[in-house]
């Protein structure tokens, strides 16, 4: 039963939120926070047990031999931990951010449902269960993207839905074909397709169908079209969903696809991983270059996200233990770094009505703590040691060499330089002289300020503790080892 709690608790919070409606906002907020704290607690217990080798499994029969199943393996729990911890922090931020907004019940309700779906994606035992949660995630995100109700938001929402549902259809097609070919294929580290390897053409086609399905949320170019537009959503949505839950569900799907459905060896020998790696590498460079020229802060961050997501895709597609571990660790690290930046963008927009780099003059003097936190995250993202981004970039780079793909190492270090190129101008813009009326040093609402400080501090802590058990790096190294024959790299 406990294994279902990470999915059920947010779902219950969502249900209660919808029932409460706009009445009693204080009770609603408290209830959401309690549900988030309980989810974090549950996941923590599952993690401790999983580290001890105890994997819980839960299954609800759907039809014939297909179950809707969840299990608490280390790979899934890493994603789940990131999603629930950041849900709790984002809730605090969102309560401050949405204070005077309309339709808060809709917002918080769907917000919690998204987390339930993301946890389902994280813990799903097989591709079919993963697909079910993946589609729920698509549908529950839509109301959040169109929350403001403006024509721009509605257009972005339509676009998102078209992309995500088409992607979902491809994923379903892939699943159906795979089922016809191999029957139920629960995720197994190292590959679940023993016995059907000879159907190379079919397996290649299925791989690309699924990769395209996941690729939409993972924003692999050219499937990224929905992401920049979706930035019209309120800041907490951009922060948690477009930096963490939704996009990471895509890359997480790719991690499962390669490491635990096909297995790195098969994905590599079929040649499909290499194709995916090429798309990811191209996405990294192209998105980074586009990010260099964005004046709109959130769009700049969005293109940075496209690039960073492909760090993960490329890492897992290299089919080497170190690169795969780097990919999984980067899934966690990037979440903390990027959420810091989207929180900051939200604070600037909400408190100072600043949305573009060209309007940012004086911001650093006005909100030094906020911008200081942003700077930490920016340098972490660019891979400056000893911050979190460095640890995962180092692993990804080492994995590239291990895989005999020095070109991927060059892509990663070039992307690091480009990341400096699109992050430093934001800091310089904030340091330019400028006037924002209010006295210097007055930050935004404390409920928005503290979450920023905490997630920025995590970029430092996760980097410094990268070598310790329980850190994303150590965790990822342990989690991917079975997919490569059980040897901890």
């Amino acid at each position, binding site marked *: 039963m406990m294994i279902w709690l990470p999915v059920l608790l947010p779902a219950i919070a969502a249900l209660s939120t919808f029932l409460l409606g706009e009445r009693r906002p204080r009770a609603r907020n408290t209830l959401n926070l309690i549900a988030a704290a309980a989810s974090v607690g549950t996941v923590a217990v599952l993690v401790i047990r999983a580290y001890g080798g105890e994997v819980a499994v839960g299954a609800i029969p759907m039809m014939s031999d297909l179950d809707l199943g969840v299990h608490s393996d280390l790979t899934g729990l890493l994603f789940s931990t990131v999603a629930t911890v950041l849900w709790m922090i984002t809730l605090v931020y969102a309560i401050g951010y949405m204070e005077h907004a309309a339709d808060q019940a809709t917002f918080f309700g769907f917000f919690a449902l998204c987390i339930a779906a993301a946890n389902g994606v994280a813990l799903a035992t097989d591709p079919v269960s993963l697909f079910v949660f993946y589609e729920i995630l698509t549908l529950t995100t839509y109301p959040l993207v169109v929350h403001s109700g403006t024509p*721009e938001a509605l*257009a972005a929402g339509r*676009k998102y839905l*078209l*992309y995500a549902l*088409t992607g979902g*259809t*491809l994923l379903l*097609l*892939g699943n159906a*074909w795979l089922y016809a070919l191999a029957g139920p294929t629960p995720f197994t580290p190292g590959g679940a397709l023993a016995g059907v390897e000879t159907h190379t053409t079919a397996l290649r*086609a299925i791989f*690309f*169908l699924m990769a*395209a399905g996941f690729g939409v949320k993972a924003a692999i170019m*050219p*499937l990224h*079209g929905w992401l*920049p*537009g979706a930035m019209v959503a309120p800041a907490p949505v951009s922060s948690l969903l477009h930096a963490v839950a939704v996009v990471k569900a895509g890359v997480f799907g790719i991690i499962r696809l390669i490491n635990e459905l096909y297995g790195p060896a098969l994905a590599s020998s079929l040649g499909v991983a290499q194709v995916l790696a090429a798309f990811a590498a191209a996405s990294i460079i192209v998105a980074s*270059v*586009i990010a*260099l*020229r*964005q*004046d*709109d802060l959130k*769009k700049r961050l969005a293109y940075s996200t496209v690039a960073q997501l492909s760090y993960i895709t490329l890492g897992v597609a290299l089919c080497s233990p*170190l690169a795969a571990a780097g990919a999984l660790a980067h899934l966690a690290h990037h979440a903390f770094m990027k959420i810091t930046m989207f929180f900051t963008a939200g604070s600037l927009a909400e408190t100072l009505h600043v949305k*573009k780099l060209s309007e940012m003059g004086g911001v650093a003097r006005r909100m030094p703590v906020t911008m200081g936190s942003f700077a930490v995250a920016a340098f972490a993202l660019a*891979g*400056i*040691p*000893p911050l979190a981004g*460095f*640890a995962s*970039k*180092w*692993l990804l*780079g*080492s994995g*590239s*060499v*291990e895989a005999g793909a*020095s070109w991927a*190492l*060059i892509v990663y*270090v*070039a992307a*690091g*330089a480009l990341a*400096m190129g699109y992050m*430093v101008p934001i800091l310089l813009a904030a340091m330019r002289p400028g006037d924002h009326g209010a006295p210097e040093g007055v930050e935004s609402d404390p409920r928005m300020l503290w979450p920023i400080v905490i997630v920025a501090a995590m970029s430092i802590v996760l980097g*410094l*503790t*990268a*070598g*310790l058990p329980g850190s994303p790096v*150590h965790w990822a190294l342990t989690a991917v080892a079975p997919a490569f024959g059980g040897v901890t*790299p």
Partner: protein
Amino acid sequence: MTSAFTGTGAFTFGLDETSIPFLALFAVVWLLSGLYTAITTPAADRPRLFAYYVPSAVGGIGVAAASDAVSFYLCFALMALPAWGLITHTRSAESRRAGAIYLTLTVVGEALLLAALVLLVVETGTTSLPGYRDAIAGLPSAALITTLVLATIALKIGMLPLSGILSLTYTYTPAGPAAALAGASTKVGALAMLRLLPAGGMPPGWADAVMVLGLTTAFGAAVLGVLTDHPRAVLGYSSASQMGLVLIAAGAGLSDTDAATLAYGAVVAYALHHGLAKAALVLGDDVVQRFSGRRARSVALAALALPALALVGAPLTSGFVAKYALKDAIHAVGGDISAAVYVGLSWAAVGTAALMLRFFALTLQPRETTPGNARGAALVWGLLLMLVATATWMWPSDWNQHAISSAFSLSSLWAALWPGLIALGVWGVIARVVPGGTRYRAVVEPGDLLTMVARGASRWAARADRPRPVAAGRSEARSSSLAEPLLGAERGYLRWTIAATTFVLVALALAWLALG
């Protein structure tokens, strides 16, 4: 292959044969330059300056003591990135441009270094820094690693055609921090040569090619330097020229293991000699401006001659020691190329002498400087000069023994003197023939090629960013930057119908593939 990466918790620092001289040099230079900065910076500017100076100094000193790859990379970045704040301290348009150029090259250099370090760690299986130089030649990626390290060093030391970077950083940075950058920053490049370039074992072509690159830089930077007209820009080009000589030394050790030992000594000798002397020249230029009295000014100018003569390699100076160590290293390589480089070395000294003459001519012109305690400044400078005079002779090592034993032989004295005499002769001609005498106007501006590229780029961007009607929903201004084809494609792609159509077509293609 395994990786010894155990997370970034494993920062290790320690002392070894390489770290000791560099640690001594960096500590002295950052400390004395810091004192000088504190004395000569107006109180109101101090917090802003030291906010960048202190982290840079911590990185700059830590990089010598770092004994694993990650710590080395961390300190390398920690020194280099905050230096941007030192260069742009005056906030003038020129200094901002210099800062932008510096930051760009630094970030590229960091990326190259990171790639080299990752390759080293994975292929050697250890993060321990001191063992790399002996291991590199035997690694599968030896050529790639060496190329990446050389490129990192090229950016750091201002190898042609990037020599302008040093003149840019020296010219716009306040004197104190500029001395730190002059004395320590380029020497991190020398440190990287000893830590990360192979000690012998590479095919002979590597040694020859790198020595030629070094000699080209030594000459080219000297030519560019005499054509500029700011004393510190001249010093910047002189640094690039001198670091070209250090590159020759490092090159000498790439292929031949015996030469590698001598080359190692030569790099250390040059780092100590040039680090101290160049910091003293930068500070001296500023000290001279602070004394208006004729006698005090004359004394200061006379004292300034010491580091200048040292750079030329005059007898009994630190440059004499360094040059001996370098000549021994080149001699050990053998072959036609090294013989040619050996001869070219003496002629490079002519270039250095010309640079020093030009520097003196420009320093003699009074110019404005920050207010501050002239005596305190002179005292700090005096301490540094004492080290310039003594350090390379007193340092306990093998590389200065040859120079000590031949310090008074006639042939070596003549070898050390004639390049200076030739430069003096040419200088006499210039003083009479060229309009403006020895203070002729600049032909090259600080940063040469880099500044031209940066100015061109910003002009281009400014023209491109001129407000034009921007369609709704379009966040970036239209531009004709290098990224424009990409941006244009992306804008077009994001337009609802095109994107949707493409996507549906991709989906149909996949579906057809699936069902077909």
